[in-house]
Each structure stands twice: as C-alpha cells, then as structure tokens.
C-alpha cells in the first residue's frame, strides 16, 4: 500500500469564512475513498484546491509522480492534470459543441502532448481512434460516438464526463458527485462502471457523493467533512454509525 496523494494542514479562507480548515489526509492506491458532508461542508473547495483551481491560504499538497512524492501546492490546473490527477465535475463540463469522439480526441491529444501538432489529422489517426474506441467501449459510448454532445441525454453526458477524465490515464481520479441528477437505472450503471474501473485500471479513486446508497456501495473508506474540517475518517460502518456524523447531517433533528 503506497500513499499517492497527501494534504498537510490544507487551509482556504475567503475573508472570515474558513472553507477548508487544516485538512490533513492521505490517500493510498488501493482503497476507494468517499468524501461526504452536508451542503457547504467544503467538498468542492477541497477538490478545487487539489486540482489547482484555487490556491490554498496555507498548507501543502503532495502527489506521487513517477514514483516520488512531488509538491503540487502551487501548480496550475493543467500542471496538476499533467502530473496525473484528473477530475470529473458535479455540473457536467464537457465540450458540448463537439461529438463524443472529438471530446475524447481532445483528452488524448492533451495526454500525448500533441497540442501543437498542426500537421496530422485526428480523424485519420488510426492509433488515436483505436484507443478512443476502447475507451468508449469501456464507458458505453460506442453507439453515440459520432453524436454531438449537446444532443445527448443527461445520463449519456455524465458518461462522457467520466470518459474524459479517464482518457488522460490518471493515477488519482477525483469524481465529483458522479450520480448527480441521475435516475435510479443510470445511477446503477455508473456505480457498476466505477467498480469496474477500480478493478481494471491502476488508479486511486476519490469520490464525493450525496447518495448514501452509492457511498456505502463503493467505498472502502469514508471521510466526513463538516464546516471545512475533517469530522470523521475510517471504515464505512464505523463512520456512518458515528453520532457526530448523524448530527452534522441532520442538525438538531433526531432520527
């Protein structure tokens, strides 16, 4: 078991508001970790700090890259991604005006470092498209490969969302509310996809999720955030039976 991602007293303040309160966490390469917490607990801020979208007020972020832990605290989003940390978005963020295949071409071109290649043609690049075909097979996108994304259903877009993040072959994969806005069938499909991915690819999965069924289904470890700080951290049964956790979720109401 190796640590692949570590935060040290990570802190983010917006004025007087402490959005992330000295969070020190380690993530290893074998467990699926879910980060949960009530609305406003600071999950998205934590993700934005990890991915370089926001700069922390203090603290450090370390990521394993080529076998060594490397500090990425001040890295910009594209540098974080190039270091092997990839994310999906809670609010679908894909290239709507492009087809599914073109979306994945973007990710693969970026991953292969060919963004300044003005000579070749992605459509005629067999190797590139074979890789994309495999990826679409894995994420159930084969049938809609040539469809423009703005005409897809919500569930299909969510699949593209995950396929995009996956296409850059991350070592750490942050999923931000992967089942957001999905119906039960689609949720079921995403859950089995995440399980499949966790089995097949060599990446560390960190998931935020509000659907407790999904959380207990997929996670080996649960971290609870409340008001920006870590409230509980451990195995699912232990964390979910923790009184403080129930309280944080339900406030003064009792079950």
């Amino acid at each position, binding site marked *: 078991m190796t640590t692949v991602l570590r935060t040290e007293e990570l802190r983010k303040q917006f004025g007087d508001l402490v959005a992330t309160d000295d969070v020190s966490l380690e993530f290893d390469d074998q467990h699926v970790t879910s980060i949960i917490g009530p609305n406003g607990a600071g999950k998205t801020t934590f993700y934005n700090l990890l*991915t370089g*979208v926001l700069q922390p007020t203090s603290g450090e972020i370390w990521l394993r890259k080529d076998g060594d832990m490397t500090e990425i605290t001040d890295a*910009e*989003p*594209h540098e974080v*991604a*190039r270091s092997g940390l*990839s*994310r999906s*978005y809670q609010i679908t*963020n*894909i*290239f*709507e*005006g*492009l087809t599914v295949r*073109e979306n994945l*071409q*973007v*990710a693969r*071109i*970026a*991953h292969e470092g*060919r*963004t*300044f*290649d*003005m*000579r*070749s*043609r*992605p*459509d005629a690049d067999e190797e590139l498209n074979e890789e994309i075909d495999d990826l679409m097979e894995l994420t159930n996108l084969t049938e809609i490969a040539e469809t*423009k994304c*703005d005409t897809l259903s919500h569930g299909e877009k969510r699949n593209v969302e995950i396929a*995009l*993040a996956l*296409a*850059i072959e991350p070592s750490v994969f942050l999923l931000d509310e992967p089942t957001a806005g999905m119906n039960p069938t689609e949720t079921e499909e995403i859950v089995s996809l995440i399980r499949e991915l966790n089995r097949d690819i060599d990446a560390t999965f960190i998931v935020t999720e509000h659907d407790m069924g999904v959380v207990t289904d997929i996670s080996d470890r649960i971290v609870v955030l409340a008001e920006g700080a870590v409230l509980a951290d451990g195995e699912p049964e232990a964390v979910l039976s923790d009184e403080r956790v129930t309280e944080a979720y339900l406030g003064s109401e009792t079950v």
Partner: protein
Amino acid sequence: MSTQNDGLVDRIGNVGRQAIGNGWTTERFALLGLLALVVVSVGPQFQVYLFTEFLIIALFAVAFNLLYGYTGLLSFGHAMFFGAGAYGLAIVLRDYQSAIAEIVGTGLAPLATFVVGGIAGVALALLIAIPVGYLSVRLEEIYFALITLAFGMLFYSLLLQDPYGLTNGSDGIFVALGGVELGGTEFRLAGRRIYYYITATVVTISIYGIWRIVNSPFGTICKALRESPDRAAALGINVSVHRWMTFIVSALFVSIAGVLIAGFSSVATPNEAHWSMSATPVVATVIGGASYFGGPIVGAFLYHYVRWGISRFPALEAYWELFFGIMLIVVVLYFKQGAAGGLAMVGAWLRNVQAAYDRGGANAATAFVRESIGEKLGSMMSRSTTGRSDDGGTDR
C-alpha cells in the same frame, strides 16, 4: 520510390473521386472553388479586379475566424496585423528595392522585392503578435475584444503620428510593384490579371493551410477551448499558451492578406490599421457564419459584392452602411449560423423535397413544401416574440 508515387497517385485519385462522385463533399466544394478562380481570370478586367479584393478580404476573415469561431476569442484589433503586412511590404519596397536589385539584378528585382517585402510584412506582424497576444489572451470575452481594440488603436496612432519617420503619416506609403523581365518575357506585377494570379495562388494556399490547421490536433484543442476552457485545463491543456499560439497563427495569416492589399491598392495607409478595418472580418464572419469553415468566405463575398452593388446606385451609395445594418440584423435575428448556415438549411430542405418527391411524386413534394414553409413562418413569428432560437452550432 515507386510505392511513394503510387501513394500520391492513389491519394490524388481518391480526392478526384470524392470531388466528382456523389454528394456535396469538401473535395467537390474545393474543386468548384478552383474552377471559379480559373473562370474569373478570363473575365472582364474590372471583374477580375473586384474579385481580387474579395479574395483578400476572404483570407482576412478566414484567418480572423481561426481565433473567433474556432477558439472563441473575438478580436477587435486584427487590422493591426493587416496594416503590419501592408506597411512591411511598403517599407521594403521604398527603402530596399535598389539594394535588392544589386543582388538579384534589375530584371528580377521587383519580384524579389515583393517576396522580401511580403516576408517582412509577416515578420512585422509576428513581432507585434507575440507581445500583444501574450498580454491579451489573459482576458476573455468583452475584455479581450477591448484590449485588442486598444492595441489596434495604439498601432494606428503610431502609423499616423509617425514618430520615427518611417510611415509617412496620414498619406501613407506609395507601393509601386515594378515590371519583371525574365528570359525575354516581361510583365507588370501590378497588372490586374497578373496580380489576380498571385493573389489567387497565395490566398488558396493560405486558406488550405488554415483548413489543415483547424483539422489538426492543434485545431481540435482550439475548439475545446471555445467550448470549455476550464475543462480543457483540467485535461492538462495550457489554456493561455494555446490561445497565444492561435493568436499568433491567426495574425500571421491576416498579415499575408495585408501584404496583398498593399500591392492591390498600390498604397499602404493608416486606414488599413484603423478599427473600422478590424470590423470588416467581424461583419463578414457574422454574416457568413462563424461555425462553418467557409462561412467567412461566403460572408466576405456578400460584404464585398453587396457593397459594390450599392455603389452602382449613386443615390444609395452614401447609405451603404444602412444596408449592412439591415443585413446584420436579419442574420443575427433569423440565421444564427449566418449565410453559410442558411445555405446549408436550404440544401437540407431541397434534399427533403427530393425525398418527398421520390416517395410520393409531385403531390407529396408540394404538400411537403407547403407544410414546411408554414412551419417555418410560424416559428419565425413565435421567435420574434420569444427571442432567437438556436439552430445548433457545428464545425464544418
């Protein structure tokens, strides 16, 4: 060696089949475009002249659209690079023609000076585009438009004020392309037909180059930046560097158009760099359709020929901007995809009419026509009250 030749012959054969086979392929459009270029060259002298100017504006607009339609950045200062190209050629022609003549001999000197001047124009644009692009691409949307406008006006006022005695102020620099003597034949570079051949060749090659770029991995990333820059960054793309590169490439192609316009109008004046010149590719692109590769070409054609058409009626000429205003309003309200989008819609509609005819003969076709026109009118009426509809952006 032979396999390579076979490959080339096969490829040419393939393009040929695509061009004359069934369907409106890109190859067929390209073939028709090339045919049009040849047909025009034997037309009346004045039409050749008019068409030459259209080609230059078309290149200007297509190069501009690499940044606008493909990358999502609306520059309002591209006349800066148009002017840079024009002045690069003009200054070389004024100051270095005799030096170049000493090297290559008087017979070839005008041609050599034209080539060197063209390279100087492009180099000057590069020199400006690197810092201006670096500073501008940090901003987006209206702020990007405003900062490019500001840089454009700065360049314009430098040309006008002429602090270093280089640009000859508001009069500009006279551009006289001489006569070339080559092995007994003699021709004037500025002759209308000769200049048309030069322009047609340069514009065709340049537009083909831009076509290759938008269909390359580089161009794919440009489209991604237009759709969602933060997602592109999350995939490992350096958004500002890629925008910067696109800005520079776009500026270089615009400067080629600038070089051509100086030779065309025999003068380089600050007007080439004025902000109203920056509006030319914007208007042409919006009228033509920014989401189609050929949109700016269609738009430049309409822009140029409608203006010419109006100028034939002296009573209307003073109001030509009024006509463009009306045209723009109609396009923005009813054809979000521009004239190229409108043509594509008409094409699709004609195919549907054909399909209806194939299914049920003339009656079915008439019924389809009546029904679809009724529908269209109905949706137009409702659109004018509910705001504009989105007929979907595409890259073609």
